[in-house]
């Protein structure tokens, strides 16, 4: 049986459903008999909900900001391809997708 400290340490991963089946079972087993950690779990779930709610409220995008953001792209049309061929700054991630073979 895992300790309260271990159970609490895993609670958020438990709530995010990111635990392995074994770890998940260990937390379930602990919560089945530990009232204190059930309280911790209930509180963590509520806190998680509060954070997610805050994430749903976005600052509005002002029209002038949108215009400025898109206007910069127009300046690229005045360049030739060769002039802007700077591929040193890779953004990472998506380039790992395999090319069609």
């Amino acid at each position, binding site marked *: 049986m895992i300790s309260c400290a271990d159970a609490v340490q895993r609670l958020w991963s438990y709530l995010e459903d990111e635990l392995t089946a074994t770890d998940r079972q260990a937390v379930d087993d602990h919560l089945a008999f530990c009232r204190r950690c059930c309280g911790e779990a209930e509180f963590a779930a509520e806190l998680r909900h509060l954070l997610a709610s805050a994430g749903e409220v976005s600052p509005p995008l002002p029209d002038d900001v*949108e215009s400025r953001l898109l206007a*910069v792209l127009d300046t690229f049309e005045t360049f030739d391809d060769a002039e802007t061929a700077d591929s040193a700054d890779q953004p990472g991630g998506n380039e790992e997708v395999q090319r069609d073979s």
Partner: protein
Amino acid sequence: MPDTTEFKEVVRPHLPWLFGLACRLAGDDAEDVLQDALVKAYRHYDQLRDRQATAAWLRQILVNQVRDRHRHAARHAEEVPVDQDDESTSLYRRLVDEDPLPYSDSLHLDFLSCFTIPDVWAVLDDLPDHYRTPLVLVHMYGVPTREAANALGVPLGTLLSQLHRGRQRFEDALWAYAEKHELLADRQGAL
């Protein structure tokens, strides 16, 4: 270079949430960071093979941009160690022990209901970047931990530590904020 008209059509629907995320992660620098990210996305537009993945692709480029800016601002930011995992009392435990709302039947839920969304953001904005950014990405924008670790360029274990410690810091800060702004006193009056 790709066609700007087509590129704009692809990114325009994503601008509102991208700008929101940029504000949350970069504050006053949001527009500059997003501008740089869009330019980068445009230059690497040929790497977007799957249109369904546009949101994740743009998010990753934006997060990279934020990360680079933070590194620039604090040259050794990525070396900031995560605080040692101390045996600090959880907020739940503190609420049970200190019982600040003695007339409440559901103390912990009543405590959290004292906070408005702007309160939550005010608390988050005071956390150091290396705690706030993972919390915002994972718990507020629902980015899976593996993807967040990838976007931030840290090992998954580091990100999980930052999240764990970040949540503790966030809980401590909630308590301090409630005391400073007397949120509980207002609440007690209402109960």
